[in-house]
């Protein structure tokens, strides 16, 4: 539990005059479930976008598995073992359920254009492997019953969220970033999601999640980081953070 899988050091992200992420530092240890919380506009999703290379940062350093990911493009951060889901669902609407998950396993295969066009035996074998892996991921998140050729947009909202998780898991990531996975879910779905996240952690995947469902966050997280206006205002166990005066003030809007 002592090995750091993700390290942020003084990360700064500005949008014009607005400093969305202001010198934020924290570390995620291997095997943890860590939560990133804060009021709306605190910069949580921006932090996710910086980690995954969707946004480039102005200052600071991001390390994944002790390798610098500060200036890497997204697809290379993914190759380091980081997978994510999105707050606003970003499924491939032009593809089936199983194909969506198979794209998630993109880095786990290597066949190129020529072997695809000619359907070479090695490529076909890889395809079977990818398909089997995708099925396993769908089953893990509880979508195993769906016909695999269902078009992704025809799924219910909660299923689409789970499909994003399955797609992220297909990469066999070392670190999984979940951006508001419980948003829009019923309390029952949300409870089941909590169990799923714990099961994912038990499979050896470290989880960093953003969510507003405090019940869920406090119940399953090992550690919590609190952001407010782009600044880290607290970090610690759920127990510690809940009693932190700055945190309470940030959420309730009181003067400290």
């Amino acid at each position, binding site marked *: 539990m002592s090995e750091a899988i993700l390290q942020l050091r003084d990360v700064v992200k500005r949008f014009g005059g607005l400093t969305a992420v202001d010198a934020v530092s924290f570390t995620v240890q291997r095997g943890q479930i860590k939560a990133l919380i804060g009021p709306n506009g605190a910069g949580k999703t921006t932090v996710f976008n910086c980690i995954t290379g969707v946004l480039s940062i102005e200052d600071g350093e991001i390390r994944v598995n002790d390798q610098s990911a500060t200036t890497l493009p997204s*697809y290379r951060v*993914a190759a380091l073992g980081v997978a994510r889901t999105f707050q606003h669902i970003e499924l491939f609407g032009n593809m089936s359920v199983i194909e969506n998950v198979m794209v998630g396993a993109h880095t786990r295969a290597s066949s190129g254009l020529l072997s695809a066009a000619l359907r070479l035996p090695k490529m076909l074998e890889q395809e079977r492997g990818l398909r089997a892996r995708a099925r396993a991921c769908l089953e893990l998140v509880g979508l195993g019953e769906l016909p695999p050729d269902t078009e992704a947009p025809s799924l219910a909202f909660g299923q689409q969220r789970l499909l994003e998780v399955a797609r992220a898991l297909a990469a066999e990531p070392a670190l999984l970033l979940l951006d508001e996975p419980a948003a829009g879910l019923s309390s029952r779905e949300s409870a089941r999601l909590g169990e799923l996240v714990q099961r994912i952690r038990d499979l050896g995947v470290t989880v960093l999640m953003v969510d507003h469902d405090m019940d869920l966050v406090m119940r399953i997280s090992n550690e919590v980081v609190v952001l407010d206006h782009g600044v880290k205002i607290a970090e610690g166990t759920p127990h510690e953070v809940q009693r932190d005066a700055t945190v309470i003030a940030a959420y309730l809007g009181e003067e400290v």
Partner: protein
Amino acid sequence: MGSRIQRYHTIGLIAVAAAVLPFVLPGDYAIHLATVIGINTIVVLGLNLLMGYAGQVSLGQAAFVGIGAYTSGILTTKVGLSPWLALAAGVAVTSATGFIVGVPLLKLRGHYLAMGTLGFGMIVNIVLTQWGGLTGGTIGIMSIPPLAIGGFQFRSELSFYYLVAFSVLLTMSLAANIIDSRVGRAMRAVHGSEVAAETSGVDTARYKLQVFVLSAALAGYAGSLYAHHATYIHPGTFGFHQSIQLVVMAVLGGMASIWGAVFGAGAVTLIAENLRSFQEFSTIVFGGVLVIIMIFLPAGLWRGTGDVLQRLWRLRHRPAASRSVEDV
């Protein structure tokens, strides 16, 4: 992507239809038209991969056709290269051009990419027109030799038709294989959500370039075929108007549909052919026909026709079903 067996069935059906077609057509001119449709289909298949599957627009595809045609024309008439080698060179030159142009252009998105490719098409057309010493200027290149195997020349309409039909089937099979693969899924993912594709580990710039070069290569191949079929080429054939027609064929056939390419290419070629009697009004009538088709078959001819047939089937069978219930 449907089942694999279904796909081979479809290819087999099209192969049989293509083999029989010349015997039902009324004469050489009809076979000539079928050949033109086939050549256009190859270009549209590439455009379909690029636009329909990967979501990248090209309004300059006719330029690649032109580069393929002129490579063939120049190398056979001025250098004396064998037509087959010239054809291979045509594919190589268009691929290289696609790569060189694609690297900067594909940084653009949406409308900007459309404008960029449009500009590229215009530049190529100007070069073809103005570089008289090499391209023959507005007059073009004449007496391009036909393709030949041993002593046999693909000079008759029928023999060339079969050469093109074979090329179309081959291209279709390759395209269908690519779509249903890791590379194909990566390309489609770029269309579906670029950010999700990237964070899934897909190097989107690389796959955009791959599919762009592939579509250029197919256009170049079709262009070379065209040059050896027509034996005479001039810049007017590869201008903006043709680029637009190619896009219309892709859209009309159905954007993300391999089989639709034939229908799109066929419909546009035949409609344009049959509107000749309208003379200067033909463009207006052509536009009108397109609008009507897109209103009633928005998913394109291939899927649209399928949907309509399905609806008719249901209409026909629903009364039968309710009757059987009454019988019970």
